């Protein structure tokens, strides 16, 4: 029953959800993020639009699998390097609760419906926890990249100065033995 309602009001809920995410950006950027539809000219807005819809579809289908995690990743990868604290970066998952509650306000007077929603919100909580894992993974990726860059910058210099040429040969010998 809740699912039917969520499906019926999908567009309105998504609009609210999207708007609440856009509100985390500076008001002067909101117009651009909302109105520019070209996915290459506005990759942030496009990703938010496309992936919130994918996530919502998966939630109401009860199909919370790898593609949904990828959708979450695509959003969080962006927010991990923007002007957000960790909590702000993943907060958008909770905004879905608010969007649904606001959109279904009249229907939620029905206790049964409210119970169903409580259950549904547990899935959103799960979404938020996975979002936190992804955020951490994105930040770890940043540190990996930093290390890789430093290694790559110094590799040739060390190679030229024969600092580890010997070690490399040693490793090759070990591999062959």
């Amino acid at each position, binding site marked *: 029953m809740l699912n039917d309602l969520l499906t019926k009001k999908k567009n309105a809920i998504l609009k609210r959800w999207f708007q609440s995410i856009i509100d985390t950006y500076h008001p002067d950027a909101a117009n651009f993020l909302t109105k520019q539809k070209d996915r290459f000219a506005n*990759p*942030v807005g496009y990703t938010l639009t496309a992936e919130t819809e994918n996530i919502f579809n998966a939630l109401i289908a009860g199909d919370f699998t790898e593609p949904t995690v990828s959708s979450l990743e695509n959003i969080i990868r962006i927010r991990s*390097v923007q002007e957000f604290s960790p909590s702000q970066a993943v907060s958008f998952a909770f905004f879905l609760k608010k969007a649904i509650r606001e959109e279904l306000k009249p229907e939620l007077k029905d206790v049964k419906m409210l119970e169903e929603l409580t259950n549904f919100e547990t899935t959103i909580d799960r979404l938020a926890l996975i979002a936190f894992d992804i955020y951490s993974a994105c930040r770890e990726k940043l540190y990996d*990249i930093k290390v890789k*860059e430093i290694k790559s910058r110094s590799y040739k210099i060390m190679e030229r100065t024969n600092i580890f040429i010997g070690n490399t040969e040693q490793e090759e010998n070990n591999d062959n033995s």
Partner: protein
Amino acid sequence: MSERFDKKPDELVQIDHKPPRKSWMDPKVEFRRGFFNYSANPKSVEYLGLPYARKWQPTDADWKLPPNWKEIILDGLRERIHRFRSLQLFMDICVRCGACADKCHYFIGSGDPKNMPVMRAELLRSVYRKEYTAAGKIMGEMAGARELTVDVLKEWFYYFFQCTECRRCSVFCPYGIDTAEITMVGRELLNLVGCDIDWITTPAANCFRTGNHLGIQPHGFKDSVEFAIDDLESIIGIKTAPSINRKGAEILFVVPSADYFGDPHYFGFLGYMALFHEIGLDYTFSSFASEGGNFGLFHSHEMMKRLNSKIYMEAKRLKVKWIIGAECGHMWRVLHQYMDTMNGPADFLEEPVSPITGTKFENAKTTKMVHIAEFTADLIKNGKLKFDPTRNDAYKVTFHDSCNPARAMGLLEEPRYVLKNVCNYFYEMPENTIKEQTFCCGSGSGLGTDENLEMRLRGGFPRGNAVKFVKDKYGVNMLCCVCAIDKATLPAVVDYWAGDVGVCALHELVGNALIMKGEKERDTDLRGEPLIGKEGGK
């Protein structure tokens, strides 16, 4: 960090994720780790004879500015307004139409309105209005005028070092305002009071001392070339014999220093040497003009001129006829747009003519300097080279137009023509992300530091997004480009945004595919990776 944990429980639950609304006139910025560059090492500042060398960092409350800093900046602005008519025009003619607003990769990636090129320019323009326009003097903020304060200066530092001078915005400006030039002047003014960044100043100091950004001395340069000769021989079975500082060579070949020290640049360096050997080019390197790049461009007009002067000086000393320049980005902005009037005329050189094809490079008539992609494209067009493109079959390639070769010199078709001849799998990224509209790597103009990584990744998002698109659609696994900064910093961008896509030089792919007289049967590409079908060795 501590501030957040000091909150009481009831304060913690009051979450408002909306950013505070504040006027653009409010200059306060927060210098967060990952989003700014460190200040210049005072030794480098002193070495270059620049003023106000001192220890300070952007995160310090007190930047230890000279007591008369405001006077210095305003005098500097006045001087530049009179010196550069373009600057005066750019200050006066912007109607704030917004055409540029959403074209900057930093704005697209961050949503920070002060990354809109029009707004970044307003940071300087507002002070200009206050000082130079009647309306600004009388009406102040109502006329968009601001007093120059320490916070405004800090804001300039924050945002003028968040512009990569890529000039994508200027493509869309109906008045032709070049916001990069506004950034350049903004940085010059900051430098007048010793607010330089290290990744510009130290490479510039190195370059002034040894001829290249890395500070490699002539014997080190010679070692590097000899190392490359050995590496190349082990792959192609031919000992090439490039010369260094050879007087009377026909051509001086100038490369960015990353080409002989960086990864993946180095494989392109091997490609140049293989190519020149195959056609029997009479060329020499110079151990003093051992850097094509010019970080002076990111510092000031004077520094750019100082660092650039070595190229013509070495061409004159070595008595060459003309110059070929290698794959580099901003190097070509300097060579193509400034060198001729800055350190020219190079009337001691000849108009470049390819000794192999006889083609006159009329576009380089005054500068006497030809881009290697043009040179190679001409060789191919005239049937002077033989290729086996299957040697690049491990790569599904896309091409990133490096900002300066694309927008500052119109080098759009030559690299593509070369690519289509040397590899079988080439796929374009979407139209509004390439050629004149190409998206910057996000790390140009001296911003490619590890301390600035998050900011670089934000700025690199539009490019990374387009790479991911062709990776998902066509299975692209190699991003080819013709800029040393791209090669150094795009690996991070594609790793974060697209994953599993390599970065390579155009001439790495040329060197892989080039069939050379007397070569041994190739088992590997220039990276030493086995060719397809040769994975098990011979």
